[in-house]
């Protein structure tokens, strides 16, 4: 037993373990980004099931300048006390961090529409989640190609 422990504790053995762990802990960057995106979606809507559609996303198919990309989100919904959108979450699939913006809306707004300008490091997918006052969540996404990446890093 002592023999085995001492073997496990040899510097060579530790070096091997560290190397193996590093390999596991450093997957492809894309996988790390997928995890970050999944985490951000969970943070935004928890485990609420999502339905696709019912959201109009206006973005250019190709962004010349990734640093300033116009984005319009228009949710197909009235914005009345009875039926309205309470939140719009905007996420990016391949930025160094997935968060773009979270908007909280109230029936004081005339319609569930927000326009903003976002930045994209590279070609990727924009994901928009809209939560309604009954708790349901809708989703839309758009692919945007980027000629010159926005300077996030």
């Amino acid at each position, binding site marked *: 037993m002592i023999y085995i422990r001492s073997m496990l504790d040899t510097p060579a053995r530790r070096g091997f373990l560290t190397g193996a762990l590093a390999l596991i802990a450093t997957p492809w960057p894309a996988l790390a980004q997928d995890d970050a995106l999944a985490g951000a979606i969970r943070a935004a809507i928890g485990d609420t099931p999502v339905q696709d559609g019912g959201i109009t996303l206006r973005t250019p198919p190709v962004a010349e300048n990734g640093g300033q990309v116009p984005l319009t989100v228009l949710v197909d919904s009235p914005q009345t006390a009875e039926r309205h959108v309470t939140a719009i979450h*905007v996420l990016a699939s391949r930025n160094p961090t997935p*968060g773009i*913006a979270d908007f*909280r809306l109230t029936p*004081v707004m*005339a319609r569930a529409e927000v326009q*903003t*300008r976002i930045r994209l490091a590279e070609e990727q997918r924009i994901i928009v989640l809209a939560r309604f006052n009954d708790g349901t969540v809708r989703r839309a996404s758009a692919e945007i190609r980027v000629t010159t990446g926005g300077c*996030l890093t």
Partner: protein
Amino acid sequence: MSNLNAPRVRIPRQVRAGETFEIRTLIEHPMETGLRQEAGRTVPRDILTRMVVRVNGELALEAALHNGTAANPFHVFYLKLDRSSDIEFTWTDERGREARHSARVLVA
């Protein structure tokens, strides 16, 4: 604690009751992510994190802004009013700097 530069807000001075009207806002801010290198050094993080719009004190729109929002955050949204109202805009960044704008919109 210093203040942010004055934001630019485009809002009509007068609208009809129940009419949908557009508001455009632009505020100067670098939106530095803290991930960017310049001449081998990391540029310190400096993010404008919050924009709040209130109508007669009641929340209309609140934005939490993250790394993916472009520098000089720009937003367009739509309101409607049934009476003359005071619209209050507030922006706050992570360093505690703040900008405010207020507008009176008359309902004819």
